[in-house]
């Protein structure tokens, strides 16, 4: 597969990514950092507030340790269905290290999608903390979280979630249109369109630029969704059952694409799936049982 542009050092995150690459799977530093974080977690709200100013040394630690990019501590989430409370997550601790392809596996209803939504800042946990790149993100303002989703997180879904009114190319450009205002987008349009085209080429959709989603096959839609997730050069890709709606061969193709993005561009990927065959291709598998990480 072609050299991937997204994590190219020329990108905005390049300098951060480059030094990390050599020590991507160095676990020792991460452990140490985890210990620090745990003390923060056990503390109450006041302590959590105190923890905020300490982000910059924390960030430094994360960078030097080369470890944890995304971390969840004691996540709890309960849904209310009428009068009934349905606890979905009952205290999940999770660490995602820089450059790894991690799979979260679990049965339906084990809370894996909810976990992913929390990690993606689409929802807020009832309890617990989420740290991204050394910054706490679960209690950030809505605008900050929108910004984070737009620029630093990439997301793909089981049902692709492309916008039906837009062509494949426009769908890929959508996050950039959100980033840029009308005039700033107009000014850079040529450059941005070029980037989107080359990204579509990377995922093997160069011949489908002007097609609407309903004119694409499932695998093609998922490839377009991946290109859309990567257009803003995110640090992490969060995938919710990326192969769940595809037949085996097409799913395998998507998996290979994700794997190559991971190895060639050092893209961190968190993937939620119920398919152990897919999960087994990950660097690390975390099993979620009844809203808690199972140690097995």
């Amino acid at each position, binding site marked *: 597969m072609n050299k991937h542009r997204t994590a190219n050092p020329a990108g905005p995150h390049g300098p951060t990514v480059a030094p990390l690459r050599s020590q991507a799977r160095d676990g020792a530093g991460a452990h140490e950092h985890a210990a620090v974080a745990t003390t923060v977690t056990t503390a109450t709200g006041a302590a959590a507030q105190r923890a905020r100013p300490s982000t910059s040394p924390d960030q430094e630690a994360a960078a030097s340790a080369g470890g944890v990019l995304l971390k969840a501590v004691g996540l709890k989430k309960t849904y209310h269905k009428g009068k009934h409370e349905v606890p979905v997550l009952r205290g999940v601790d999770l660490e995602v290290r820089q450059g790894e392809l991690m799979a979260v596996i679990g049965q339906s209803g084990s809370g894996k999608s909810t976990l992913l939504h929390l990690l993606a800042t689409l929802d807020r946990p009832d309890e617990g903390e989420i740290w991204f790149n050394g910054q706490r993100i679960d209690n950030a303002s809505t605008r900050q979280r929108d910004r984070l*989703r737009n620029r630093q997180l990439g997301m793909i*879904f089981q049902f692709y*979630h492309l916008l039906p*009114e837009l062509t494949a190319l426009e769908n890929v450009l959508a996050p950039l249109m959100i980033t840029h205002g009308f005039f700033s987008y107009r000014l850079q349009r040529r450059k941005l369109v070029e980037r989107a085209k080359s990204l579509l080429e990377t995922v093997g959709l160069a011949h489908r630029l002007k097609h609407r989603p309903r004119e694409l096959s499932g695998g093609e839609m998922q490839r377009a969704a991946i290109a859309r997730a990567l257009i803003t050069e995110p640090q992490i890709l969060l995938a919710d059952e990326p192969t769940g709606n595809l037949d085996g061969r097409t799913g395998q193709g998507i998996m290979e694409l994700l794997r190559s993005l991971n190895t060639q561009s050092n893209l961190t990927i968190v993937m939620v799936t119920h398919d152990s065959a897919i999960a087994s291709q990950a660097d690390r598998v975390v099993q979620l049982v009844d809203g808690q990480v199972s140690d097995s």
Partner: protein
Amino acid sequence: MYKFLLCWRYLRTRWIALASIISVTLGVATMIVVNAVMAGFTQEMQDRIRGILSDVSFEARSFNGFRDPEYHMREIEKIVGDEIEVMTPTVTVPAMLSFQLHGEWNTRPVQLIGVPRDAMEYASKFRQYLQHPKHREQFRFELQESGYDRRDRHGGDEAPLRVRMEMAGMVHRRNMIEYRRQWEKQLGAQPAPPGDTAKADSKPADDVVDPFAAAQVANPFDVADRPLDPFAARNDNAQADPAAPLTGCVLGIGLASYRHAGAEHFLVLPGDDIQLTFPTAGTPPKAVSDSFTVVDLYESKMTEYDSSFIFVPLDKLQELRGMFDRESGTTFVTSIQIKLKDESRGSIVRDKLQAAFPPHFYSVSTWRDKQGPLLAAVEMETAILNMLLFLIIAVAGFGILAIFFMIVVEKTKDIGILKSLGAHGSGIMGIFLSYGLSLGLVGAGAGMVLGLLFVRHINEIRIWLGQLTGQMVFDPSIYYFYEIPTSVNPWTVAWIVAGALAIAVAASVMPALRAARLHPVEALRYE
């Protein structure tokens, strides 16, 4: 950026939304048409009123009037001289009009107005209502040989022919005298001059008319007509010609005719003699009568005026009513009509004059004061119509609201996707607000074009509708208009369009807010 792209795509792919704004289009178009027609009517009516009424009238509260109009005019000049273009002293008095029809005397109440003969020089608007083309250029209370308009000249060829007007003028007068002579000869009676008291009264009339006849000789326009000039002819053998006209007067067309089936049927023609009876200025007032010759008819199309006013020369009326003081040589008038340089300053001038003259004796009013109830009624009608029509657009707003809610529900998943891509709630709101604005723009814009086109071709449409339905849509016999008058005020149009836009945007606010507040996870789950 995505807002505009998506807004555009939604516009292009959702024609049902355009259906919701058809009501906006129709509402805007109707409002423009109604306002244009109402404004046209109002303007037309104001023009007609102002053709008869002066800008400000300064009146005595008594029929006897006030002494020495020159002194009053000097005083008025001192107070508001800068504003005034011209002042005219007049005498207004209630009177009875009598004319003979098939040997029967017809009597009607009228308002008699004496105006100076030269004042007609300034009354250019009033002159336009006269029926003889020469009188519209210059009018001196003189009877023309013939050539009075045979149709309502505002109606063009559409107007019905006024058959009897063909013979109006001196021709008619001579015919009538000849006819009467023949008739009286048959009866074996002596021929009598027209008008019962005409013989005695024609003398002073001659004195008054003469200087103008002389002036007319100096007028190059009239040289060619001299042989036809009845006055010139009479100067030679005044006493001998039984057809010599008496003092001229101008009748409203509503007094001289009745209207039936859209056409005038004349009872009195220019050239006929009429008798006027009115009170003298003394105490107690006595009734005096005199005969006048109708020299022209005026048609201002304000029925109220056309069927009540008769204009006669001021000096004649003053003489007959005894409104002069032999010793001092001063005269009396009942009012001074003031024409202003700027009509809109009428109420200021009125207030200044009212403050300067004792209100017990003088009343000062603008033409708007006099026609206040009529103008107010038209304004009220316009306001109510506007309110009702704006409600139509408001109803259209609810249509937009409903369709927008539908679209938001339909697009719930897309909203979730956009939020997962980092779009802020305000951006999502922006999509739907700009969608509403675009729909409003399309609807109001189309309505504006439609409305203006309708106004422009309203008379063609009227004729076409008449042909289609076989029913007269706009009957000139009722409205005195041959064409529907319209007047488009750009500001009114701008306000209507702005109002429609505001309603379209306001209707999209609630659905847009709902879209902005959708929870991303729930929106994504929505199927």
